[in-house]
């Protein structure tokens, strides 16, 4: 193997990864637009997919980048959904403002959740995440006058986008709005995980003791990540509220939290693409199989999880990565 001159490599690597990310973002946008043309009758389902994808992305920030296992991420998603839903019913109908309200509510909830969860480690931490989402679930159920209890909120009527594009019956506007939102958030998160802050988070996941020996305190870093993660999840929740015009108790549930974790692991942790791939694959298969028999669906997901842990611990995106690397290696070998 020839040794590269270090300074040329120094310039080459960040450029290469930047290029790869631009291609990745383009692919996400293209896949989204393809969905628009290919499934015009399922746009509301696809919008829901985007909304959940934001939730899974937010979970990747906490689990994949910081190494904190959470089974309560839907607390943040639900906070965003209810905040946007309540604001919309109260007369705030500007869609962008509703998204901001959702993100803010998610962020604040994220701060609270982080403050509580970061007190413990390991299993107690996992249990705290569950207890928080269950607590909010019970609170949403009880506060009937604000949240509609088990009936949920409905009848939200967001104003036209930019004052021009109505949220139509077929969900075209909602879908394209959601897709644009997803691409923007995705780009922002790609920049985030490449920032010094993102690198410290990765460090905390791999060896917290080394991070503290560098003189970096973990708590403020992790708390900030919870804030950001909450804002992203809240954005997803608000998008769901605007697009489906319904907010139910299921948006702040243990089940949704557990499903989000399954989607993330299915797609692969810690690279953001996995969150998207996992969401799409999981929800598409669920859409088909669960309609047919919910228990077969459970068995299938269960078997899949076991198989992932045993045979593909890095998830689908990891497997794709691996396959790509093997192919590349083959190509390089054939070249002189």
């Amino acid at each position, binding site marked *: 193997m020839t040794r590269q001159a270090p300074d040329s490599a120094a310039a080459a690597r960040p450029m290469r990864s930047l290029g790869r990310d631009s291609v990745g973002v383009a692919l996400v946008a293209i896949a989204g637009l393809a969905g628009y043309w290919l499934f015009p009758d399922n746009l509301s389902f696809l919008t829901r997919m985007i909304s959940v994808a934001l939730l899974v992305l937010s979970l990747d920030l906490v*689990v994949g980048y910081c190494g904190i*296992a959470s*089974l309560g991420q839907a607390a943040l998603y639900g906070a965003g959904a209810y905040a946007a839903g309540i604001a919309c019913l109260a007369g705030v109908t500007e869609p962008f403002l509703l998204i901001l309200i959702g993100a803010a509510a998610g962020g604040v909830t994220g701060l609270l959740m982080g403050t*509580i969860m970061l*007190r*413990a*480690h*390991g*299993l*107690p931490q*996992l*249990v*705290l995440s*569950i*207890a*928080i989402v*269950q*607590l909010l679930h*019970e*609170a949403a*159920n*009880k506060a009937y006058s604000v949240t509609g209890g088990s009936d949920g909120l409905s009848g939200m009527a967001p104003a036209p986008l930019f004052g021009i594009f109505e949220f139509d019956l077929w969900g075209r506007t909602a879908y394209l709005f959601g897709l644009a939102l997803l691409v923007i958030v995705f780009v922002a998160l790609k920049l985030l995980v490449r920032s010094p802050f993102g690198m410290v988070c990765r460090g905390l996941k791999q060896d917290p003791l080394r991070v503290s020996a560098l003189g970096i305190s973990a708590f403020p870093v992790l708390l900030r990540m919870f804030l950001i993660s909450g804002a992203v999840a809240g954005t997803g929740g608000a998008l769901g509220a605007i697009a489906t015009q319904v907010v139910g108790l299921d948006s702040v549930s*243990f*089940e949704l939290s*557990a499903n989000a*974790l*399954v989607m993330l*692991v299915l797609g692969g942790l810690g690279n953001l693409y996995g969150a998207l791939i996992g969401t799409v694959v999981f929800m598409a298969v669920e859409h088909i199989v669960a309609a047919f028999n919910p*228990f*077969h*669906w*459970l*068995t*299938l*997901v*269960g*078997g*899949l*999880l*076991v198989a*992932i*842990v*045993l045979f593909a*611990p890095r998830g689908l995106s990891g497997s794709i990565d691996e396959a790509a690397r093997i192919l590349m290696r083959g190509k390089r070998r054939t070249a002189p």
Partner: protein
Amino acid sequence: MQTALSIALDALAYGMALFIICIGLSLTMGLMRLVNLAHGAFAMIGGYIASYAARDLGLGYAVGIVLAVAGTILIAIPLERLLFRRIYDRSELSQVLMTIGITFCVIGITNYFFGPTLKTIPLPAELAQPVDLGFRSIAGHRLFVIASGLVVAGGLWFLIERTGFGINLRAAVENAPMARALGVRTEWIYAASFALAIGLAAFGGAVGAEFLPIEPYYALRYMVTFLVVVSVGGAGSIPGALAACILLGAIDVTARYLVPDFGNFFFYLAVILIVCLFPRGLLGRAQ
């Protein structure tokens, strides 16, 4: 006063039912370092077997429970060999994911065979009657659950603290390579303690069915409750688990009685407070 007493007895019985199921989970987590979210699935299998034997085959309560324990362990053995053994030294997240996966499979398969209805385990006449304690009477079944819980706690304490098996188990947990070098068959120890934990889960699932009804989503619905008990008590601690079960049972039953329309709100609020105050559990081991 009468109501307070009857709430207290209810809470105690409910706490003991929780204890019988959860102590196995606490031991697998504390001693074997395995986060087994499928523990509730084994309790559910026990409940289904007991119900099938006692109700559908008419074999009676006692036979039903014995079959539940034996049958669940039989089902667990191949699972331990094929699946669990591979994740003993994997990360917590891997363990969580695989055991959630197993839980999903158990729910799906059980419902494929038994249908999505509630399963009851008919009580024998002796346990269905109230028993007079002098100051007040209590349902015989509750007394039976309380007694079973105490027997399980005492028996486990004796097994772990006072027998050769307990010594080997603790050695295998502290330092597996060293224990192996000293001739302890750690694989066998792990398999045996796993079977013990599963057997207790099945027993608890069967005798606790009055409190935690056997239904299709049992394994998922109570997974959270079981996890909460173990982390509040401190994984691996028998007195900790006992204290956590009685405390959480009391909170749950009292809240349901006093503020029924709040559901589990106060239960989870208490859990958050307790875990924040005692991040290692009420009686967890200092590390």
